[in-house]
Structure formats: C-alpha cells, structure tokens
C-alpha cells in the first residue's frame, strides 16, 4: 500500500509516455499502422546520428569514468587533506548539474572563437588554437564540453564506493606481503568494478540523452537534436518519426543494459 504513490508516479511519468512512444512509432503521418518510421531509422542521416550519439556518449563515459575514478581516489585516499575532498564534492555537485544552454554559453565565452581563453592564448602566446585544428563546434569540442559534467558526475557517484575500500584490507594485504599493484589487482579493482561499471552506464545514458548543450553549440548530428527537430515541427514535422527515433534510443539503452548485466555478473563473481 505504501508503494502506491511510487507506482502511480512510475505509471504516469514512465510507462504511460513510453507506451505512447511505442504506439506512436508505428503510426503513419496521417494515422494508420506502418513500419516505415522504423525502417527510416536505418537510412542516412538518422543511422549516422545514432552512431555519432553512441560514439560521443561512449567516449565521454569512458574518459569521464576513468579519470573520475582516479580523481576521486586521489581526493579520498589517506593523506589527502580533508578540505580538498569537501571542496571537490561541492564543486562536483554543482558542475554535474551544469548543462544545457548555460554550459554551452560558458564554453563559447571561454573557448569560442573570440572566447577569453582563446583571446588570451592569441594575445599573450600568439597561438591561435582555431588555426591549429581546434574548434569548439566540432565533435571534439562537444566532447570536451560534455566532460565538464560527465567527470564530476563520475566523482560524485563513485566516491561512496571508494569510501567502502577499508583501510584494514590494505593493511591486511600488506601484512600478507602484497605489493600495492597486487592489492589493486586482487582486491581494490574487483571490489570497485561493479560500481564503476554501473557509473559508466549512468554516464553513457546521461550523455546519450543530452540535448540542449549540443544544440546550442550548433552541433546537430546527434539523435536527440534530430529528434527534437522533427518533434518541434517548425521546419521538419513528423512527430511519429520522432517517436520512432525515441524508440530507437530505448533500443540502444536496452542494448547497453544487455552488455552491462553479464559484465556486472562477471565482476561480482568474487563476492559469492
């Protein structure tokens, strides 16, 4: 009985919209059942947008994941002053929620073609990054911007897991003659792995669903931005095709889960 509000919430905000997407994806522009929306996804530019979205999310999830763990560990490990950790947590809490148009604007104002950092490099070091292959408005640029929220998110979600690495384990391993590398190989990484995998999946979903940041940077070769264009309907209008794209995004995330669950099981084997 106590779970009723939860199920009502889940029904209204998860199952109902998802069901609508599922049904709508198979409707034609003028009603009626059709597969053409789904088959349309496998044509350019839509399949390309999917690939690009997956690549962008994968790269930022892995890079954010790996560096996030390292940074979080460096801040939490014994010997690091406590204030560094609290500062990092506070900053991460803010930065992980910094996204969309404000984030894009912040980057344009710093690393854009006339951003302050770009100008500083040009005036002080006579180095124009835009003449040497860098541009904020390319895939690399968008990846850098995404890392700005991916990295802190990783730090936030992985910190409790790192806290769980007890000092006694390390001491016990050392007493038994294990070198640090052996401690990590046989204790540290296996303990952390399930959490790391879970966090990376979260990061992937986080980037995969992001919209406004890329949109404001004029980067349109992403499935969310393409979907938005068809749903908004000012130039391109086909809401049912947009729903098919949303269904495609469900499929991608389901695929990710299909990879994640066996990996997780493998990572947890030692615990049994």
């Amino acid at each position: 009985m106590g779970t009723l509000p939860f199920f009502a919430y889940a029904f209204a905000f998860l199952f109902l919209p998802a069901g609508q997407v599922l049904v709508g994806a198979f409707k034609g522009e003028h009603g009626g059942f059709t597969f053409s929306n789904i088959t349309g996804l496998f044509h350019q530019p839509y399949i390309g947008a999917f690939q690009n979205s997956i690549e962008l999310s994968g790269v930022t999830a892995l890079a954010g994941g790996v560096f996030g763990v390292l940074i979080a560990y460096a801040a939490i490990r014994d010997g690091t002053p406590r204030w560094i950790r609290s500062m990092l947590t506070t900053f991460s809490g803010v930065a992980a929620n910094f996204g969309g148009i404000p984030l894009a604007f912040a980057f344009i104002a710093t690393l854009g073609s006339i951003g302050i950092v770009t100008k500083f490099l040009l005036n002080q070091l006579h180095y124009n990054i835009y003449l040497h292959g860098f541009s904020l408005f390319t895939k690399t640029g968008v990846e850098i911007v995404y890392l700005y929220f991916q990295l802190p998110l990783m730090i936030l979600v992985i910190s409790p897991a790192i806290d769980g690495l007890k000092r006694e384990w390390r001491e016990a391993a050392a007493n038994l003659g294990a070198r640090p590398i052996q401690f990590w190989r046989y204790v540290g990484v296996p303990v952390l792995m399930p959490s790391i995998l879970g966090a990376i999946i979260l990061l992937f979903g986080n980037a995969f669903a992001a919209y406004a940041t890329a949109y404001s940077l004029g980067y349109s070769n992403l499935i969310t931005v393409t979907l938005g264009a068809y749903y908004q309907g000012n130039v391109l209008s086909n809401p049912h095709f947009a729903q098919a794209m949303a269904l495609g995004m469900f499929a991608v995330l389901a695929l990710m889960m299909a990879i994640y669950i066996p990996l997780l099981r493998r990572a947890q084997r030692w615990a049994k």
Partner: protein
Amino acid sequence: MEDHEAQELEFWQKLREEGMSRTQMLKRSVAAAAGLTVLTTPGLAMARGMAAAPPLKGKGFSMKEMIAEAKKEGHLNTIALPPDWANYGEIMSTFSKKYGIPITNNNPDGSSAEENQAVQSLQGDSRAPDVVDDGPAFAISGTAQGLFAKYFVSEFSTIPRAMKDTRGYWTGDYWGAVSIGYNANLISTPPKTWQDLLKSEYKGKVALNGSPLTSGSAVAGVFAAALGNGGSLGNVQAGIDLFAKMKSSGNFIPVQSTPQTVASGQTPISIDWDYLNLGYAKEFPAANWKVTIPADGVYGAYYAQAINAHAPHPWAARLWEEFLYSDQGQLLWLKGYSHPARFQDLAKRNVIPKALLTALPDASLYAKVKFATSGQQTAAKALIAQQWPSKVGS
C-alpha cells in the same frame, strides 16, 4: 478546391457590387449556405444569425461598431510576437493605447508551428490566441486544418495578389529579405556578396540566425545562399554547399546569432532578415552594425495574419487586423524596417515619411528579390534534413 474557391469569390464579389447591408448579408449567407459545397465555420456562425457575429469584411462596415464591440470584449490575445521583431513592441503598445484594449502576448519567441498548435489545443479556452502571425506554409496548413476564420480587411484589394489567400483565410502582412549584417568595428572590409563570405579574413566570424533544421528563418538563409552560389529556389544544394564550405574553412560558426551575440561581438557577421539586422544597427550603436543586401542572391519571405476560427475575442481580433493593415499600422512595420504588404500602395499615394524610406537600404537592391513557393519550401527542407546534419552540423 479551385471550383468552390471561385464560387465563393464570385459570391462575395456580387455582395460588394450590390452594396448590401450587414443584415441583408446575413440573410443571404443562410441562403448561400445551401448552395455552397463547403461550409466554413464563420459561415455557420453567421447562418445561425447570431447577433454579435463579427463581419466577414471590413470594407463598408462601421468601424465605430467594431471598436465598440471590441471594447466590450476588452482584451486581445496575441502569440509569438517578439517585441524587438519588425517593431512589434511599438505596434502592440500603439494599438492598446489607441483603443484602450490590453494585449496578452503569449510565448513571444514561439514558432509558427507552436502558434497553430496553440490555436488547436486551446480551443474554447479564453487564453487561446485570437490572431496568429504565421509563415505562409503554416498559414496554408492551418487553413486546411480549419483553424482560421475568414476575414477580408478593408484594404484587402491593395494587398498584392501573391501575398494573400483569395478566400480570405490569411493575408500576408510584411516581408523582408535575407541580409548580411556585420560589426564594422571588427570587420574592416564589408562583405558585399555571398561569395565574399568565403574569404579567409572572415574566419570564425560568420553566423546564421539559427539551425535550418528548426528555424524557418535559417532556411531562408540557405535559400539566399543557394541563389548566391549558382543554385535556384528549386534546388538549394548550392546553398548547403556554401555553408559546408564555410564550415570546413572555419568561417562559419554554428552559434545562433541573437541580439545578445550581435551586441557582444560574438557573431561579427550575421546572416539574418534585413529588418532584424537594421533593427540591431539602431538598437546597438556601440556594435557599429552595418547591413548589406547581398547583390548575388536576394531572397525574401513574408509572414501572414490569420484569425483563430474560435477566437475568444473575435471582434478585437478583427479590429487588430484593421489596425495592422491601416496606413498607421503599415507605417509602424516600415518603421521596424520590414516591407509592409501595402508598401506599393503607400508609396503610390505618397504617404511614406521620407525618414522611413531613407532608413531602408536602396530600393534597387530589392529589385531582384525572389520568393519561394510552398512546394519549393518543402523540397528545400527535405534536402536540408538529409544533408545539413553531416555536412554542416557536425
């Protein structure tokens, strides 16, 4: 379609010839209802003989009565009229002051799609927009969906034939051409043509007013670029290619230019409507903003007024239309640097103040202006949807 269109037109013409009074017209419309194949909603309302049904035509109708009825309603709902767009801010405040009717302008930065959506979803709601200012494609699709009421403004006959629906569902209101605005503090050699924009000195400086995947105004930029790059209205490939070339050379920055980016110098060159660029020149003197109508490709587009078939304030809606198409309303648009629909008529009758004329770029620059048909629009959008994401947007 053509058939009943002609039939209806003939009917209204006959009415005008006979100079019928309003009550006669109401009676006649009942009789006509039987003869017409398609009966429209306002027609129905009239057929029912409702006492307060607003007129179908402004001409010959007493403005006094219209004003009185509109005042009784006491309010007007508009939608998607940005105050800094084509002088809409002053147009709205002048209307309110003149007739004492306050205006609620919802979603000022909304799109045409959102305007029609609001008409549809707010049917029967007192917050529904009374009038819309749609792109022609949306005026046409909205008409087909039965969203709009027929109304012929008093000045209907002085509006160019190409800019109006002869059945009276929508009427073109003002037009503009795609221009190149630039910050003369940052740009030493002014760009004069579309081809100029490829010059290496403009690296990282050229912006468009949005993404053509979501903004009709940005689609217009692609049309204009196509004309300037050897393409045509029927095939905008050349326009996409020009942007792709600018993107790969680094000239094009895909930041959407807005009043803010223009004022801050972040978009030193901005492809946008002439009335917006000219407006920025006045609004931001510090940016030293100048405007060119590129000689190798002049593309124009107009917007269209239409009245919600279920307008919560039908009289105020018609009064608003009468105001917009009056000399006063038309000159207010011109003051916002857009070309009002009745520009030729105003010019012929010499009622345009000199200051307003000289504030616009030379009339000869507009001589070559081209307007796309709705079929050309559809083709262009399809091509842009295919190619823009990979060629320019990545």
